[in-house]
């Protein structure tokens, strides 16, 4: 199977590094080529990394609640950069506080994210979905 490239990072002014390091470790272990841009990363850094490495998917993490502001317009910016139909995943604690998950899910789907994960999603779930979406 051809090795797929995934851009990984934590968006915005968010410095949560632990999950990021574990995702890097686990995704690499699962056979993906991981390009980890780390914490405190603006949308542009994700997109530039994806263009440079010809990536197949972008995994956005957000743990601190500002995900809603930080993720807006990302799909449009991807298209402008020529990343047509690139897979966009987002997960973590992506909004402030305990909100109805169905609403949050809908909001991020409308922003153009292919998969939107609630808090506490295991790494295995994302790996399973990535394999399904990338090798279908």
């Amino acid at each position, binding site marked *: 199977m051809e090795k797929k490239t995934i851009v990984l990072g934590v968006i*915005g*002014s*968010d*410095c*949560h*590094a*632990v999950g*990021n*390091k*574990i995702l890097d*470790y*686990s995704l690499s272990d699962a056979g993906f080529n991981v390009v980890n841009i*780390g*914490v*405190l990363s603006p949308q542009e850094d994700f997109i530039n990394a994806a263009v440079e490495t010809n990536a197949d998917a972008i995994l956005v993490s957000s*743990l*601190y*609640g*500002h995900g*809603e*502001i930080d993720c807006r317009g990302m799909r449009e910016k991807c298209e402008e950069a020529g990343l047509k139909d690139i897979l966009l995943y987002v997960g973590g*604690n992506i*909004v*402030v*506080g*305990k909100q109805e998950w169905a609403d949050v899910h809908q909001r991020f789907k409308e922003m153009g994210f292919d998969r939107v994960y609630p*808090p*506490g999603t295991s790494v295995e779930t994302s790996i399973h979905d990535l394999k399904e979406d990338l090798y279908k």
Partner: protein
Amino acid sequence: MNLKNKKLTDEQFFSLREEVLSQWPTGKEVDLQEAVDYLKQVPEEKNFAIKLEKAKKEGVTLAQPRAGVALIDEHIELLNYLDKEGGADLLPSTIDSYTRQNRYNECQVGIDESIKAGRSLLNGFPGVNHGVKGCRKVFESVNLPLQARHGTPDSRLLAEIIHASGWTSNEGGGISYNIPYAKAVSVEKTLRDWQYCDRLVGFYEEQGIKINREPFGPLTGTLVPPSTSNVVAIIEALLAAEQGVKSITVGYGQCGNLIQDVAAIRALEEQTEQYLKKYGYNDVVVTTVFHQWMGGFPEDESKAFGVISLGASTAALAGATKVIVKTPHEAIGIPTKEANASGIKATKMAINLLEGQRLAMSKELELEINVIKAETKCMLDKIFEIGGGDLAIGTVKAFEQGVVDIPFGPSKYNLGKMMPARDNNGAVRYLMTGNIPFSKELLDFNRERLEERGKYEGREVDFQMTVDDIFAVGKGKLIGRPEVK
């Protein structure tokens, strides 16, 4: 490097000050002389330093939540709810993450959108944008001492604004608000910027105003061995004292093994006092803060209360002056005010029941205290050595060389070669020591403890243990044992 651990001169301080106050329009609201007069009117029961010193004398443990929202009136409502309904002893204002990165334009977007949406879109209170006017309104609307809690590498303008507003404590430090909170800010820069924050407090002290400073104990909050966080706390305490700070609260984040946690707080308090005296700072009041579990929480709220109660009990048995409280919403993010208050209530209940009790000395406790102190001393000795006797210079070099190495730090100025894991009793040990300068005896001790677990679990001692340990508490166990299939 012209950084030195030396008190800033008035000339240096006031020339920097002009630049700091011009970083955002609200900086103009700070008038130092007027602020001195304002702070002199603050009643004793609303002064953070005085309340902590009193608690230390009385041997009680105070409870403080974390809390902050985007808008002033909502923030006031939240704080008063945590006081009246939750029973908080001290109040925080958790500052939002845009402010922490000095992105005040984005704060304004967050404020505007929060007004529009009718809910906070920021994860904290944007203190700089609200300015002295807004921060004083908050202070005047609450009945308890107020502290800024954040994670800001360059907190100079924020410090100016909050102190001028009557907030008598500021959390943070040149290491503890850099390595866990930034990617590309040099240690030299943050040490310098925090010298300024400390000098500002020192200036107020010279005017007879007591202000507390609190190095951030838990760092990355993820399996940080006690001696690693204690080293950072002691360094920041010494650096603060040099700038004239007289009230310092050193902190530690719960690791989970009761004996090790109690040992960590005792070693921290004793060693901080020893080092302050050794370097001639004889009039500093040292208090301690214990942070309830900072790692991943169980989603189930009842299970979360179990974690909270253990943390509260440990803080009380350790004799910490203050405990920072978690909430049953921890696993999913920022709590509602009701959830926040319920965390304080559970905490205070446990503290009240343990009133007057301390964990008695035992062979095990004594061993842990001695190990933590010995590990801490190895690092500090090396820091002073490579700094040619200067602590600030030594600290910059220590991070370059990995003499101090914080696990999971996002900063590129942290070497990242050290890895921790739990031993068979759940105490956090050094799995890979990287360049940390431990004696052979200490290296062997850490290794033996981990081998004991490896043998028990029938597996190699390696990074997989660390990964399993990180998720364990969220899944309901302290130690990440392999799953039995």
